[in-house]
């Protein structure tokens, strides 16, 4: 493929840094915006990780006084809010931004300027949230971040119990950055529906696209309820409204219903992209087509629908009636079925293959084992009487970290090692990648497997310290120890980035011998993506090109 302005030209012309900066700040190009989303998300990941490390240092021993309760409570609030809204959402938006147009043979997204606006709204929202550390006036004086938990239950988050502006920063930060996600969703849907290249019917779309579509529809459905609930909370706090004001007849549980109506689809919004990355990476490294494409699509779509019907399984302890408890338990267990089917399909893809355990595949294999556990602990939490013990304990913390780290972050790491060569033209070090993988997996297991036991032994979540006589010390120490290994793993990733700059290994167009359209462009792709509009006849256009004697379209 002819590249008109590849990296070589850019370096040779040695443009002034103001030009380069302007390029990035004013860009509407999906590739640059994708990189900016991912880059910002990774920066927030480091910040959220530091908050987590501080909390685990505080909890390593009982009755510790490293962090005051005020600081600890702000840290768990900011850690959760950061990881969900400022790490998870932007990184998945970033990868979708970069990959989706390339995968469908398009030139850019449907609404490039909306795309750019969305990025800057996300970033602005994140800055608003973090400004709270400096600027907000909380109960204890200036400079307090919000401390009401990432789901800000009422009436704790109301004016009476959260004085000052800390909670308002939480509301506004998320509100503003939510516009970024929403505009991203609109763009994904419009692009995937209207800008696919010739021959790419919906049945020939890569699974990545299908899953991005389900995620985008969920975003359209789930983010506005959060916005609505937050606006109601703002009205309560600033205009004296009584939506969640229990002193005036308002209902504290109504906030929970609204929040979790958003919150449950949100966690599927976060984890379905993990499925998307796995669905692209596992086949390539197993050297086999994905097993059961149609079933994978059907399973993902049904997960999307079911995800909107299960929200009150976060509320089993609020005193709902028997009928509601039974319904939400049952429907939550039902959603485990399509999820399980996907795991089986991935394993079936690997089965009979010639699996190359390069770094992306290492992370995806760990993902399979860990997401399996995450799903099973989810079933345990869906089992309402079991949940009456496990809810709001460290078991829940273990479960959702298994989903979000063991599932999402693992596949994000996989996706980074997989698509970094396409994005930059340079490979990431395989050696550092392996160190990253093993250190991180060991640390992850030490921390989060142990946590399940703390929950079953009665340790609630969101406590800044615990007594010495409850038998939780060893478990907490091991949990905290795992942080060291995870941090070391992440440092290896950073070193890999540095190495890619200082000693770049050229990647070529298609370092992994993959099959979707993005690998037919140069690395990095030219600004216009494709010199000629591609035309496809199957789900794996590059497989057809590489195996003209045995193309996919004969079998699909």
């Amino acid at each position, binding site marked *: 493929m002819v590249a008109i*302005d590849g990296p070589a030209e850019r370096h040779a012309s040695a443009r002034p840094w103001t030009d380069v900066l302007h390029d990035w700040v004013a*860009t*509407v*190009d999906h590739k640059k915006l994708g990189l900016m989303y991912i880059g910002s998300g990774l920066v927030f990941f480091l910040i959220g990780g530091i908050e987590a490390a501080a909390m685990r240092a505080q909890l390593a021993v009982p009755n510790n006084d490293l962090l005051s309760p005020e600081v600890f409570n702000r840290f768990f609030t900011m850690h959760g809010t950061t990881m969900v809204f400022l790490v998870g959402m932007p990184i998945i938006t970033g990868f979708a931004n970069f990959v989706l147009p390339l995968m469908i043979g*398009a*030139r*850019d*997204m*449907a*609404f*490039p*300027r909306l795309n750019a606006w969305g990025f800057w709204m996300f970033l602005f929202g994140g800055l608003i949230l973090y400004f709270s550390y400096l600027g907000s006036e909380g109960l204890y004086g200036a400079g307090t971040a919000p401390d009401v938990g990432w789901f800000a239950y009422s009436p704790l988050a109301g004016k009476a119990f959260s004085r000052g502006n800390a909670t308002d920063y939480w509301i506004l930060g998320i509100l503003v950055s939510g516009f970024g996600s*929403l505009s991203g*969703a*609109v763009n994904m*849907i*419009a*692009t995937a*529906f*209207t*800008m696919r*290249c*010739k021959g790419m019917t919906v049945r020939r779309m890569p699974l990545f696209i299908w899953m991005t579509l389900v995620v985008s*529809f969920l975003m*359209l*459905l*789930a*983010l*506005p*309820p959060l*916005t*609505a*609930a937050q*606006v*109601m909370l703002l*009205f*309560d706090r600033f*205009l*004296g*409204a*009584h*939506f969640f004001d229990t002193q*005036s*007849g*308002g*209902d504290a549980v*109504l906030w929970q219903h*609204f929040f979790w*109506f958003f919150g449950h689809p949100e966690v599927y919004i976060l984890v379905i992209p993990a499925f998307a990355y796995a669905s692209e990476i596992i086949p390539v490294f197993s050297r086999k087509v994905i097993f059961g494409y149609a079933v994978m699509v059907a399973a993902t779509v049904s997960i999307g629908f079911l995800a909107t019907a299960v929200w009150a399984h976060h509320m089993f302890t609020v005193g709902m009636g028997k009928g509601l408890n039974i319904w939400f338990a049952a429907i939550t267990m039902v959603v485990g079925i399509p999820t399980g089917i996907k795991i089986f399909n991935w394993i079936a893809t690997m089965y009979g293959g010639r699996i190359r355990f390069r770094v992306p595949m290492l992370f995806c294999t760990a993902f399979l084992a860990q997401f399996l556990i995450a799903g099973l602990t989810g079933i345990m939490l869906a089992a309402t009487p079991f949940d009456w013990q496990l809810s709001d304990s460290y078991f829940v913390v273990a479960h959702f970290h298994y989903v979000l780290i063991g599932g999402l972050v693992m596949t994000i790491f996989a996706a980074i090692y997989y698509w970094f060569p396409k994005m930059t033209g340079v490979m990431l070090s395989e050696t550092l990648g392996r160190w990253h993988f093993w250190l991180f997996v060991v640390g992850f297991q030490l921390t989060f497997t142990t946590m399940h036991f703390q929950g079953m032994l009665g340790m609630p979540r969101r406590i800044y310290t615990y007594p010495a006589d409850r038998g939780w010390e060893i478990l907490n120490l091991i949990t905290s120890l795992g942080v060291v290994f995870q941090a070391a793993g992440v440092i290896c990733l950073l070193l890999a980035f540095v190495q890619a700059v200082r000693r770049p290994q050229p990647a070529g167009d298609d370092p992994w011998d993959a099959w979707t359209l993005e690998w037919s462009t140069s690395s990095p792709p030219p*600004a*216009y993506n494709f010199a000629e*509009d591609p035309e496809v006849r199957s789900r794996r256009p590059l497989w057809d090109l590489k195996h003209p004697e045995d193309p996919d379209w004969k079998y699909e």
Partner: protein
Amino acid sequence: MSEAVAVETQESRWNRGKVGTLCLIMSETTFFSIFIVAYLFYTGKSLNGPYPVEVLEWPWLATACLLSSSVSVVLAVKFLEKGVIPIFIAFLFITALLGSIFLGFTAFEWYGLIFEHGLTIRTNLFGSTFYSLVGFHAAHVTIGVLIMLLILVLSLGGHVRSEHSHRVDMFSWYWHFVDVVWIFVFTVVYALPLWPPF
């Protein structure tokens, strides 16, 4: 500049404008649903008055204006498609006018509620849910009217031609959505309190 703006590769039945507008409408639907759920949930739960049956009057004229504006906007688009610009401008102006009259009625109603009946957003649960639901709807009407004013200004300058009709069509979908929301608001806020079982 090495970057150009994306160009649609093919004009399919579903162009990006239509899909984008539908997505926007979907997300706005869920946004309004939460306010409607809150309103229904808190019906009859206010600890003190004023109560809806005491202070609300059926907004017949306002509703008539808003619903007929949906007809006029359809006509506006039709005439733009045919290229008859002056009639298009007339119908678009009528739509904006009807929308503004609706807003006028809302303002008048709110003035009465606040200053004569003492109902504000902080008075009771009814006040909180009423003003937020009706207020957000009115805000969406306002945005629609402002967009129409913008289109009118551009049309008067001769910049709007029949090949732009699909864009005004997109706006008309938004305007119909605003109308449908009003039907729900009308039912839930004004009709239900006066229905015996309630």
